[in-house]
């Protein structure tokens, strides 16, 4: 029997980026907030420090900061006709665990979606005709506009000390920035991070073909910086230990170093780690969430935490699972296309390339996940899709994330995988390669969704989330088109040798691709086709708010964190400015 704890004003389920943002904003508004985190606490001082942090084996290969699959995982299948099997070790994507969540180990690429992305269904219908979108493509307009979200994008830029160059300042195009981005109210707080030599070669080649290169926007401070919370961030040292690792220089933004230091000294906030939320309590009659049940992972004891306001701030899978188990919202039914919870699951459709340059020598051991140059000419609706047979696109990126000692041995295809020949090739090519990526969008399809697995359960006996996903014809066509354009740029760089890496026909859960899972509890203007309204408030429980990429109606050709954090600030503002003054539905259907 769960021990019933004292009522609190608000409870956060998960203390990553969105949990920290909401907890901070709600305590500022005077609420008593409990933050529940299933993993351990993590602070820069204890966990992101030398010499332990520069350990590729521990963090990059053995995934120390990631979700523990032995406690909880998901099951996967490519199609509804197959039987799903549990993922015993994450590969393609790596949900994080512990305070900071996936926002610790991210690459910190810091993007906004374009104004057209926010009304993608309308935009495509207007531009290419009302019959252009096939019936199985279930994309939807966002229930808010870019202009409405812009102040919150700007706010998150400043919290992170983001580095980049504006391409559109208040409607005025700025040379050297991304000319396709939506109008920004302000430039990035820090100048762009330095680009490495291969990235600059890529930019030059792209420019020679008439494209518009610009430095990648990153949530990494390029200079010492103080954020609006009063917290100092350091200058990126280009040490290379970035992806899958916390930042030793206090430069890459995470909730841990931008918001948590203030929350920790906030008396209205209480952090409980190793608190695994197993149940969202829901009163169907009154349409209210009444609190959550969690297990203390150190003792096995169960607690009920009643709360006036429940905020789901966990990862895409857990948010969706919580609703399905609580019976909130109608589960998506693939056969009829009805229902919403679990619908429009999307997974970023990336594809890449590598090029080798015999006559070059670069310091490829240095860098940072976001060090590099991009073009956005082939993203979303930035180009004309007439006659192409697909919609969507993505940005191109040539970066230098630093090549670590174990995984960073790029050798041309056909090189033996071990022995003296491999060693010779490693020595030769290690300082002479460049990597490229296309960050492809995913336009939701009725065949791709999440539901509860009928067979497999977690350690608490709860059914696992089952992912049914495969690349669609649209997304494959889109990706092949992007790779074709990328290949032209690579050829213009005049490499000794290059290789294109198209996506295999069927999605596989290895190797790593991105942790950009989206959908499942999508936001929308109509309760029949969405789970939460424009303020991320559940249609079926006005005191339940859902954060994160699970609210995306589809995934666009950019990394999701910038948008999901802007949405968290947008929602927090609606809660504190509107909901707390007059509790109830913020949108009447």
């Amino acid at each position, binding site marked *: 029997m769960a021990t019933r704890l004292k009522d609190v004003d608000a409870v956060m389920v998960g203390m990553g980026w969105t949990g920290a943002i909401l907890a901070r904003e709600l305590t500022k508004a005077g609420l008593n907030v409990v933050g529940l985190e299933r993993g351990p606490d993590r602070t820069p*001082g204890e966990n992101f*420090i030398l010499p332990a942090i520069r350990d590729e084996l521990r963090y990059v290969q053995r995934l120390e900061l990631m979700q523990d699959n032995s406690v909880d995982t998901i099951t996967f299948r490519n199609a509804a006709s197959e039987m799903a099997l549990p993922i015993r070790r994450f590969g393609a994507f790596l949900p994080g665990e512990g305070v900071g969540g996936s926002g610790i180990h991210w690459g910190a690429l810091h993007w906004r979606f374009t104004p057209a992305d926010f009304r993608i269904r309308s935009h495509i219908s207007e531009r290419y005709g009302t019959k252009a979108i096939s019936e199985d493509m279930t994309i939807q307009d966002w229930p808010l506009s870019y202009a409405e979200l812009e102040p919150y994008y700007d706010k998150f830029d400043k919290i992170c000390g983001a580095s980049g160059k504006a391409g559109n300042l208040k409607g005025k195009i700025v040379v050297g920035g991304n000319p396709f981005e939506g109008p920004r109210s302000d430039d990035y707080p820090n100048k762009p991070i330095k680009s490495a030599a291969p990235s600059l070669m890529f930019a030059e080649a792209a420019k020679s073909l008439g494209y518009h290169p610009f430095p990648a926007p990153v949530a990494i*401070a390029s200079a010492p910086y103080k954020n609006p919370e009063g*917290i100092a961030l*350091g*200058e990126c040292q280009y*040490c290379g230990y970035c992806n899958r690792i916390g930042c030793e*220089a206090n*430069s890459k933004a995470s909730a841990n170093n931008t918001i948590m*230091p203030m929350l920790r000294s906030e008396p209205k906030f209480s952090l409980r780690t190793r608190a695994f939320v197993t149940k969202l309590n829901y009163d169907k009659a009154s349409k209210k969430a009444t609190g959550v049940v969690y297990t203390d992972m150190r003792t096995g004891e169960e607690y009920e935490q009643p709360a006036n306001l429940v905020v789901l701030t966990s990862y895409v899978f857990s948010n969706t699972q919580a609703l399905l188990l609580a019976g909130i919202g109608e589960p998506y039914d693939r056969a009829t296309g009805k229902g919403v919870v679990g619908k429009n699951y999307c997974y970023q459709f990336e594809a890449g390339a590598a090029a080798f340059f015999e006559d070059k020598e670069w310091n490829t051991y240095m860098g940072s996940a976001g060090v590099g140059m991009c073009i956005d000419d082939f993203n979303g609706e930035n180009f004309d899709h007439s006659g192409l047979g697909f919609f969507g696109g993505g940005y191109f990126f040539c970066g230098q994330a630093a090549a670590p000692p174990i995984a960073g041995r790029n050798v041309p295809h056909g090189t033996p995988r071990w022995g003296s020949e491999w060693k010779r090739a490693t020595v030769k090519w290690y300082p002479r390669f460049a990597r490229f990526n296309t960050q492809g969008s995913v336009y939701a399809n009725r065949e791709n969704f999440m539901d509860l697995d009928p067979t497999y359960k977690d350690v608490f006996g709860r059914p696992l989330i089952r992912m049914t996903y495969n690349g669609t014809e649209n997304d494959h066509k889109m990706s092949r088109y992007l790779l074709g354009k990328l290949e032209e740029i690579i050829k213009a760089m005049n490499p000794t040798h290059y290789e294109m890496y198209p996506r295999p026909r069927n999605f596989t859960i290895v190797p790593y691709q991105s942790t950009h899972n989206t959908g499942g509890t999508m936001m929308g203007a109509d309760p029949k086709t969405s789970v939460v309204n424009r303020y991320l408030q559940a249609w079926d429980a006005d005191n339940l708010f859902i954060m994160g990429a699970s609210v995306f109606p589809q995934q666009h050709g950019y990394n999701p964190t910038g948008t999901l954090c802007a949405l968290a600030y947008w929602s927090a503002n609606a809660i504190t400015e509107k909901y707390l003054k007059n509790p109830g539905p913020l949108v009447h259907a």
Partner: protein
Amino acid sequence: MRQLIVPGLSGAAAVVTMANAVLAADAARGQQVFAACAACHSEHAGGIGPPLKGVVGRKSAAVESYRYSGPMRRANLIWDESNLREFISDPQDKVPGNRMPFGGLHEQRDIDDVIAFLKTQN
């Protein structure tokens, strides 16, 4: 003695020579230089480096809540001006194996000013 090079005068560099002592240490300027240190050395709990409030004249490894490296715990220094100056100019030379990932300040004036600033933080 050190040299300050002022470029751009009639295509030739003018070389100005001055004694260190001529420049009084400037705590306000030191606070600006300290921005490079502040990311890790902040007053907030859980920072990457220990808080530096009251560090001038303090014993090394004195902040109880901070987990110092072994070499720093064994260093047994008093952070007087001369030790601080040596440490700030080359942290790994002064205390080999300590965990601060910072190459050090190289301009004498920067070091003097930062120490002047730290003295005000008591």
